[in-house]
């Protein structure tokens, strides 16, 4: 296996982009990543694109060919292009597929991207499309919504560990604060705990401001083997680990409803592959599709003990100047959550942090970063460890 580096990054603005199409979004992210890498279309050996639900959001499948075509990589260069799907973990999985392709020696320069265009349908259709990340027959058919499933995780976490409603709100407040320093974010504004507590109920105890929004956006990274990376790019960021794990698709069949075992296993595999422990991580982008999800994530990734996610958040441990800064980009909550693009955007943010290019939200001296992407309520988890040093 060859060592792999990220040599280029690109990301669109995240938000409700009425004037931009699916293909516009992908093209902008991909082009920016190639320019950043100092590479050209002719250099690209393969494309992997994470996309959850173009079939439902824009009535379009065959996404691999579509994006290769509109990126100018299909008609004359005939670059192989593969769509990867694992619900909200589609982006993380596309990155992993790209890493595997380069590590294996089969391809040299690979674009791993993610794209989702969610606002071309009305909200009810979006809610239903997102619910397809859960088990349609035995959760969705019974009336489960996606926020409803995470609300049941939150209820039990509060009941069992004493996690408070305010602690959940503090996750959203922190991530909104971080997003004020991210010009790509959907919501570049502060919110207060009261704003969260007074927002409408979606699925009790979760309210509107506990939920990540509906977002359009795309992100891309360029991958290369280390030797080639050094020739093309002055500041390659090394992929020290790429790990993935599965769990039951239904929440009710899990070993423990308040633990995402897929995260636990993906993280353990990633730490082993990178030969590090959780305390070596300087900064992390985690999958905060709901506020409770960030609290579970910091526990399941091993940053705090199970049940301590709420108090750790309240004590500021996860703030930009805390022991383990979490979601400097604003996370899914405030940067936005174009589902298929999220896993790639997380990697883009970590690369910016490790290059020292994150501006006002820079975590000082960050050398090792982690990206954590979840599909559904935890049926899939993908963890990447990125590092300044090989």
């Amino acid at each position, binding site marked *: 296996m060859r060592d792999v580096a990220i040599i280029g990054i690109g990301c669109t603005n995240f938000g409700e982009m009425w004037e931009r199409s699916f293909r516009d979004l992908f093209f902008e992210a991909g082009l920016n990543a190639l320019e950043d890498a100092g590479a050209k279309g002719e250099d690209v050996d393969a494309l992997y694109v994470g996309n959850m639900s173009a079939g439902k959001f824009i009535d379009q499948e065959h996404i691999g060919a579509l994006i290769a075509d509109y990126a100018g990589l299909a008609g004359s260069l005939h670059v192989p292009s593969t769509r990867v799907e694992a619900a909200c973990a589609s982006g993380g999985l596309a990155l992993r597929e790209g890493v595997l392709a380069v590590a294996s020696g089969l391809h040299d320069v690979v674009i791993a991207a993610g794209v989702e265009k969610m606002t071309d349908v009305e909200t009810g259709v979006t809610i239903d499309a997102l619910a397809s990340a859960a088990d349609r027959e035995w959760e969705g058919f019974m009336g489960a919504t996606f926020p409803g499933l995470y609300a049941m995780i939150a*209820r039990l976490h509060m009941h069992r560990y004493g996690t408070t409603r305010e602690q959940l709100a503090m996750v959203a407040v922190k991530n909104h604060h971080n997003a004020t320093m991210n010009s790509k974010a959907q919501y570049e504004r502060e919110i207060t705990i009261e704003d969260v507590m007074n927002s409408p109920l979606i699925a009790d105890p979760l309210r509107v401001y506990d939920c990540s929004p509906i977002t359009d956006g795309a992100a891309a990274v360029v991958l290369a083997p280390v030797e080639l990376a050094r020739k093309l790019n002055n500041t390659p960021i090394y992929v020290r680990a790429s790990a993935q794990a599965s769990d039951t698709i239904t929440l009710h069949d899990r070993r423990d409803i308040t633990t995402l075992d897929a995260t636990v296993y993906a993280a353990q595999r990633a730490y082993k592959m990178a030969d590090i422990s959780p305390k070596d991580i300087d900064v992390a982008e985690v999958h905060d599709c709901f506020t409770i999800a960030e609290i579970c994530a910091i526990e399941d990734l091993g940053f705090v003990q199970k049940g301590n996610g709420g108090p750790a958040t309240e004590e500021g441990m996860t703030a930009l100047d805390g022991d383990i800064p979490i979601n400097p980009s604003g996370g899914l909550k405030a940067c936005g959550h174009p589902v298929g693009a999220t896993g790639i955007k997380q990697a883009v943010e970590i690369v910016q942090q490790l290059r020292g290019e994150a501006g006002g939200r820079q975590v000082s001296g960050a050398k090792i970063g982690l990206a954590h992407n979840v599909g559904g309520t935890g049926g899939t988890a993908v963890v990447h460890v990125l590092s300044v040093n090989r």
Partner: protein
Amino acid sequence: MAVPRLWRHIPTRYNLIGTECQTCGGLYFPPRTTCPTCRRDGRIIERKFKGTGEVVTYTTIYSASAAFHRQTPYVLAIVKLDEGPLLTGQIVCDPDEAKIGMKVRPVFRKLGEDGPSGIIYYGTKFAPLTEASQ
């Protein structure tokens, strides 16, 4: 939902028929064709569940997809059946009434419909188990 997709699971949805692995004694609802513990060494047979159980966790849904919009707010729970398996279903009760640990019993109810002229889906919901209902 297409008619065959509903129809093929009617016995399971109406009567809570799942499966049992005779090798390890594992009980599963919904039915599985392979025991996830024993895999190819498993011996799977049908198993009907009583439907009584206890609420493990719950939520009240205020924002639902189009198919369930008219029912909001409604209580959704993960129920641990007395025999052991857990499943997701609605609780027919007031949102203030729902509690973790609440005992429930199965009730046959309409789950949804495919618009005004489409098929109506039925299945199992749960109701609080009171002394009067025992």
